[in-house]
C-alpha cells in the first residue's frame, strides 16, 4: 500500500488528487513554484516543497528535482496530474528506475502511444479505424504534398507530439500546404520541443468523442463510457458532457471494445483516454490516446459513480480492478464547464491577476473542482484554467438548466472570465438540440453576440449606493459589511475632498 504520494502538479488538479489521498489515508506532498506559494494545493497538502521560479521550465517541469524531493520526503509514488510531466515517458522511466511508483502507465506504453504517429501504428495493429493519412512524421513539404494528394484535400497537418491544437493546420488547397507545413513544424518545435509533423484526411464537421478506459496491472481493462467534447474553441475543449447525446448503446460498445483492444495491445495500465472523431454517419476514427487523467474526468465519475483518482491509486498499488465491465452502468447526465481567465470581449486574451471577488455556486447536483479563492492572484505563467464547474442531473435538459442556475450564482470579480460564454452556449438552440461538432463554437462566436438588454434603473441605483458607501469600500476592506450607513452618519463618513468636489460639481450646474 502507498503511504505518501507526491503530486507533481498545481491548481485544481493538484487539490483534487490531494483530496483523494486524504480519503485513502495517504499523505500528500505538494510542490510549488514561487507563483504558487499561496496556492490551495500548498495549503491543503501535508507537506510542501519549493521548486523554483514561476516559469514551468524552472519549476513544474523539473523532473529530476521533483524526483529528488520525492526521495527526500519519503514519498513512494508520484501522481503527475495532467499536463507538465504527465505524458513524459522519460520521467515515468526515471521514477520506475528510482523505485518510486509513477501513477500512470508504464513508460513503454507511454512511448508506444505517446506520439500521435506511434499511436496510429498501434491502432493499425489493433485493427482500430483511424483517419486516412500517414503513420510517420513527414520529412519535407514534398512528402506532405504526396500524402495529401493520396488521401485528398482537405487535410489536417498535426504535430506528432501535439495536443491542445498547437502545431495544427487545416489545409484545403495544395498551394497552401508548404507554408502550413513550415508553420506547423515551427509551432510544434516551440510548443513541444519536437518538430515532427504528420498529415491526415480532414473529417468534415466531426464530433470529438472520447472513451475512458481503466486497466489494472493484471491484464484487466474496462471502458467507462464516453465523453462528448465537441464544443471547442480553436481545438481547446470548452464544455464536455457524458454521456454523448448521439452515442447509442451499440456504438458505445463498439467504441469501448476497440479502445480496450488498443489499450491491451499497448500493454497499457492505469487510466487513459482514447480520442475519436465521429462523423455524421456514426463512423468513428481513432485520433490519439491520452496516457493520463483527463481534465474532464469528473463527468465520467458522475455518470458512472466511480472515483477515477481512487482507482488510479488502487491500480498503482497493484490491486486488481474492483469491478468488471458488466458492473459499469451510466446514470443521469453530467456537463462540465472549464472556467478560464480570459476575456471573451477582447478576443479571449488571457486575464491573469487578483481575484478581488468570488461568489461560488453550490447545492444539489453541482460539483466544483476549483483552484482559486478570493484574494488569489492568478499567475500569468500557466494555463488560464481557474476551475471546473460540473452539473449533474437525471437528464441532459435538466443538467443544462442546473448549470445555467449555477452560472447565475457564480461571480468572479477583478479579472475577466468566460462565464458569460457558457451561458450563451447553453442557451443556444443548436447546443440544446445537440447539433454540435468541433467547428460548432467557432461558428457560434462568428455570429454577432446577442445585443445586451437595457439594464433599467437597477444598476444605476446600485452604482449610486456603492458610490455613497465609497469611503467605506476601499479595495478589500470590511467596513461596509453592514447596511450602507445613511443620513448624518453617512455624510459624516464621506471623505472631505469627495463632498467638497461634489458640492462644487453640483454648484456648477443650474
Amino acid at each position, binding site marked *: 500500500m502507498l503511504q505518501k504520494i507526491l503530486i507533481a502538479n498545481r491548481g485544481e488538479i493538484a487539490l483534487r488528487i490531494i483530496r483523494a489521498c486524504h480519503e485513502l489515508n495517504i499523505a500528500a506532498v505538494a510542490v510549488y513554484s514561487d507563483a504558487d506559494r499561496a496556492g490551495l494545493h500548498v495549503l491543503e497538502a501535508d507537506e510542501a516543497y519549493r521548486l523554483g521560479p514561476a516559469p514551468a521550465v524552472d519549476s513544474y517541469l523539473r523532473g529530476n528535482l521533483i524526483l529528488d524531493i520525492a526521495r527526500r520526503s519519503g514519498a513512494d509514488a508520484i501522481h503527475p496530474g495532467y499536463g507538465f510531466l504527465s505524458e513524459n515517458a522519460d520521467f515515468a522511466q526515471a521514477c520506475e528506475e528510482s523505485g518510486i511508483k509513477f501513477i500512470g502507465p508504464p513508460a513503454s506504453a507511454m512511448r508506444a502511444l505517446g506520439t500521435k504517429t506511434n499511436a496510429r501504428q498501434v491502432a493499425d495493429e489493433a485493427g482500430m479505424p483511424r483517419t486516412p493519412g500517414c503513420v510517420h512524421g513527414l520529412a519535407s513539404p514534398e512528402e506532405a504534398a504526396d500524402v495529401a494528394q493520396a488521401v485528398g484535400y482537405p487535410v489536417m497537418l498535426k504535430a506528432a507530439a501535439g495536443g491542445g491544437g498547437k502545431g495544427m493546420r487545416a489545409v484545403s488547397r495544395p498551394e497552401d500546404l508548404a507554408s502550413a507545413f513550415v508553420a506547423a513544424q515551427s509551432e510544434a518545435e516551440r510548443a513541444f520541443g519536437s518538430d515532427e509533423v504528420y498529415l491526415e484526411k480532414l473529417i468534415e464537421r466531426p464530433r470529438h468523442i472520447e472513451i475512458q478506459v481503466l486497466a489494472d496491472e493484471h491484464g484487466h481493462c474496462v471502458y467507462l463510457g464516453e465523453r462528448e467534447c465537441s464544443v471547442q474553441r480553436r481545438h481547446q475543449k470548452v464544455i464536455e458532457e457524458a454521456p454523448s447525446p448521439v452515442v447509442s448503446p451499440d456504438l458505445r460498445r463498439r467504441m469501448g471494445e476497440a479502445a480496450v483492444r488498443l489499450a491491451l495491445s499497448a500493454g497499457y495500465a492505469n487510466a487513459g483516454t482514447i480520442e475519436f472523431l465521429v462523423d455524421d454517419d456514426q463512423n468513428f476514427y481513432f485520433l490519439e490516446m491520452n496516457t493520463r487523467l483527463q481534465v474532464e474526468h469528473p463527468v465520467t465519475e458522475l455518470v458512472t459513480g466511480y472515483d477515477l483518482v481512487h482507482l488510479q491509486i488502487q491500480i498503482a498499488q497493484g490491486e486488481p480492478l474492483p469491478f468488471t465491465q458488466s458492473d459499469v452502468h451510466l446514470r443521469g447526465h453530467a456537463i462540465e464547464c472549464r472556467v478560464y481567465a480570459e476575456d471573451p470581449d477582447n478576443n479571449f486574451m488571457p*486575464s491573469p491577476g487578483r481575484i478581488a471577488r468570488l461568489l461560488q455556486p453550490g447545492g444539489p447536483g453541482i460539483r466544483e473542482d476549483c483552484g482559486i479563492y478570493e484574494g488569489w492572484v492568478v499567475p500569468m505563467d500557466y494555463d488560464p484554467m481557474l476551475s471546473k464547474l460540473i452539473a449533474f442531473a437525471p437528464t441532459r435538459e435538466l443538467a443544462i438548466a442546473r448549470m445555467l442556475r449555477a452560472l447565475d450564482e457564480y461571480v468572479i470579480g477583478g479579472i475577466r472570465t468566460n462565464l458569460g460564454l457558457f451561458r450563451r452556449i447553453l442557451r443556444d438552440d443548436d447546443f440544446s438540440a445537440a447539433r454540435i461538432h468541433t467547428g460548432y463554437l467557432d461558428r457560434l462566436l462568428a455570429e454577432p453576440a446577442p445585443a445586451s438588454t437595457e439594464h433599467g434603473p437597477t444598476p444605476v441605483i446600485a452604482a449610486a449606493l456603492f458610490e455613497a458607501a465609497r469611503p467605506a469600500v476601499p479595495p478589500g476592506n470590511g467596513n461596509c459589511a*453592514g447596511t450602507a450607513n445613511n443620513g448624518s452618519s453617512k455624510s459624516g463618513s464621506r471623505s472631505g475632498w469627495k463632498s467638497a468636489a461634489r458640492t462644487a460639481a453640483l454648484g456648477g450646474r443650474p
Partner: protein
Amino acid sequence: MKLEIEIDGKTHRVDLNPAGEPGRWTVQLDGQPVEADAHFIRPGVLSLLLEGRAHRIVLDADLAEPALHLDEHRIAWQADDPRSFQRRRRHAAAHGPVTLKASMPGRIVRVLVERGAPVAAHQGIVVIEAMKMQNELKSPKEGRVAELRVMAGDTVASGQILAVIE
C-alpha cells in the same frame, strides 16, 4: 446625497435620501421616486430590494475602475468625482503620436524593432506572452519608433504603454 452616474454612455441623476430605517432609501432617479432597501451582505456584495424585486449586485473589484455584476451582466459606470473626470481627460488626451498598449498582462518575449527604426503599418513591434498564449503586437500606423519602453523579459500590465510610434 446627489450623484451623477454614467452607464452605457447615458448619464443619470440620482438623489439618495435615507428613509429612516437603516438600509432604506428614497431615491430620486432622473426625477422619478423609487423606494430602495439596500443591504451590504459583505464588502462589495449588495442585496438590493426595489419594490419587492430582489437583486444581488457584486462590485467587480474596487471603485478605481468601477463596475458591477448584475444577473449575467458586467456593467461599468462612472460617477461625478474627480478621479473619473481625470480618467475622461486621460482618454480624451490619446492624441498625437500613437501609443502601442499591452493587450493583456504578460511577459515580453521578443522586441522586434529598435528605437528610432522606421516601421510599416501592421509591422510587428513586440511579442507578449501570458498563460501559454503568445500575441504579436503590430504597429498601428506607418512611422518611426519614437519610444520603446520595454525589453524582453519585462512583465507588463494590461493597457500599459509599450512603445510610441510617431
